[in-house]
């Protein structure tokens, strides 16, 4: 709180009763939140677990675990199969999950929500199907220098197949992709921009709303990789007006093996199926198949129905806490961690964008990231060390790897202290 007051101008200072009102409304009880996450109470290497790798995958609240268990224990059968009670019940729960995603993203229609295995498959679906329908040799796809490999490699595969051209909007020294740099690369052959909303490696928040407006003004469709962003800020696909948005369930405190592709109805209708199989057809003979309407057209085979149901529970969970309150909590953790880690002299933070999600990437002069992560692990502190599936970002900053601490809705300031203290031990061990 002190830091907040220090930044206040006199005119900004609220009346006491306003502050109390705000505090009451915005009270975020992190200990109550932590009680929902069984794994956070499991000791690791004889110490309390300090889990700071939520950007890689989030831990699961008991509500999500219970949703998946109860679906199997009480409602399970294959969906869309016949008239018997359990299949109907399972289908209802699967459809209900789709409604929850639709509400979460504020999509216009439920059938604009396609369940996939994750953000990676969602992007591959767009590359294959949109690519098949709308891209030809010489057409350009514009990405940013901050993309995860999952939003680079599908386009390279499409380049091999169709001869498209991949353009990359450059990253500045702060780890930002300026809007002007993005706009500069929108050319007459640009057909699609595929842009992450939040960098997984650095935490940078990209100005995607302005990028979408600029792209649309140039007649360019936009895919947003929301894998890192929806967990912090949600998404309103109608307000953003993005053409596609991809995210993964497991980063949103939901299960593995489930993700979402949102796509505008007209585009999805115009795109060919991604995979063929059961559930995605209206009728099949050996001469021809007619495809089912959306969303079934893009959901061949038995889907991850239990995981979809549990993703619905995850959405309920974060919506219940309130994304505004979650992001305020995470922002305060990021500020505090930035302050604490900046005080460690050999440590340099990589990625100093003006707007960041709660991801802190750093290196220490003279200590390899893997050695840092190893010592942190011995203190029960779980962080990621490596290239974060974003090798071009590492190359941009001239490092082979970084250590990345990422903060989620269950992390505490005491855990930031544990991280900082463990890093001071690293310094004593390897440098002093």
């Amino acid at each position, binding site marked *: 709180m002190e830091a907040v007051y220090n930044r206040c101008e006199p005119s900004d200072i609220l009346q006491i009763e306003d502050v109390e009102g705000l505090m009451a409304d915005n009270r975020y009880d992190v200990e109550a939140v932590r009680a929902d996450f069984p794994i956070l109470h499991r000791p690791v290497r004889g110490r309390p677990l300090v889990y700071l790798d939520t950007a890689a995958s989030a831990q699961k609240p008991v509500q999500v675990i219970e949703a998946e268990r109860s679906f199997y224990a009480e409602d399970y059968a294959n969906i869309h199969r016949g008239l018997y009670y359990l299949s109907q019940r399972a289908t209802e729960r699967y459809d209900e999950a789709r409604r929850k995603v639709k509400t979460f993203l504020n999509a216009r229609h439920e059938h604009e929500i396609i369940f996939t295995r994750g953000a990676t498959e969602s992007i591959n679906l767009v590359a294959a199907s949109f690519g098949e329908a709308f891209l030809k040799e010489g057409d350009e796809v514009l990405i940013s220098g901050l993309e995860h490999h999952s939003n680079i490699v599908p386009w390279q595969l499409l380049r091999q197949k169709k001869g498209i051209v991949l353009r990359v909007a450059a990253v500045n020294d702060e780890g930002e992709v300026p809007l002007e740099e993005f706009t500069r690369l929108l050319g007459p052959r640009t057909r699609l921009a595929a842009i992450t909303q939040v960098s997984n490696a650095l935490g940078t928040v990209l100005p995607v709303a302005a990028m979408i407006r600029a792209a649309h003004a140039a007649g360019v469709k936009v895919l947003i990789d929301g894998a890192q962003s929806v967990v912090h800020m949600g998404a309103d696909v109608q307000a953003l007006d993005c053409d596609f948005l991809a995210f993964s369930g497991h980063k949103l405190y939901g299960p593995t093996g489930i993700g979402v592709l949102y796509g505008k109805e007209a585009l999805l209708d115009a795109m060919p199926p991604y995979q063929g199989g059961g559930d995605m057809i209206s009728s099949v003979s050996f001469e021809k198949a007619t495809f089912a309407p959306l969303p079934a057209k893009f959901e061949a085979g038995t889907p991850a129905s239990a995981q979809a149901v549990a993703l619905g529970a995850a959405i309920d969970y974060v919506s219940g806490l309130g994304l505004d309150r979650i992001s305020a909590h995470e922002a305060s953790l990021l500020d505090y961690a930035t302050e604490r880690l900046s005080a460690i002299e050999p440590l340099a933070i990589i990625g100093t964008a003006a707007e960041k999600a709660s991801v802190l990437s750093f290196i220490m002069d003279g200590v390899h990231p*893997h050695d840092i992560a190893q010592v942190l692990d011995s203190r029960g502190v779980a962080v990621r060390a490596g290239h974060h599936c974003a090798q071009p970002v590492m190359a941009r900053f001239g490092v082979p790897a970084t250590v990345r601490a990422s903060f989620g809705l269950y992390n505490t300031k005491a855990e930031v202290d544990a991280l900082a203290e463990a890093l001071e031990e690293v310094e004593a061990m390897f440098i002093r």
Partner: protein
Amino acid sequence: MSDCVDLYQEAILDHGRRPRNRRAMDNCSHHARNENPACGDEVVVFLKIDDGGVIRDAAFDGHSCAVATASASLMTEVLVGKTSAQAKCLFDRFHAQATGTEETPLDGMKAEGQRLALLSGVREYPVRLKCATLAWSTMLAALENQRRPV
């Protein structure tokens, strides 16, 4: 400093901070380069083997974590004066220590075996095995790479 002290023993930290024989060798007879794609670490191993088949000098270069650097540094120290056959024997012993598998005979190189045992703490950290063995597997490749320019 408790906990991963079995991996980061003081002698290992010392070799990591002040590696021995980290230098390029212009007049080597054997060399090889290798990398660990998981972390981007890279090591080049240089050997000078005389006409009698004895390693007269060993060095390494590159950038790597403390475990890989210390392992390379220790390796270059123990290899000098050994034949290719003895170097392979030491590799087998080192690998057995690092993986916790049955230890192989040392053929009279007991002191060297004890020095290499400094790194046997890595057996508790399977993810780091590649770090500890990077220089050694590069050395084996170098033995196959006779007299080619760097």
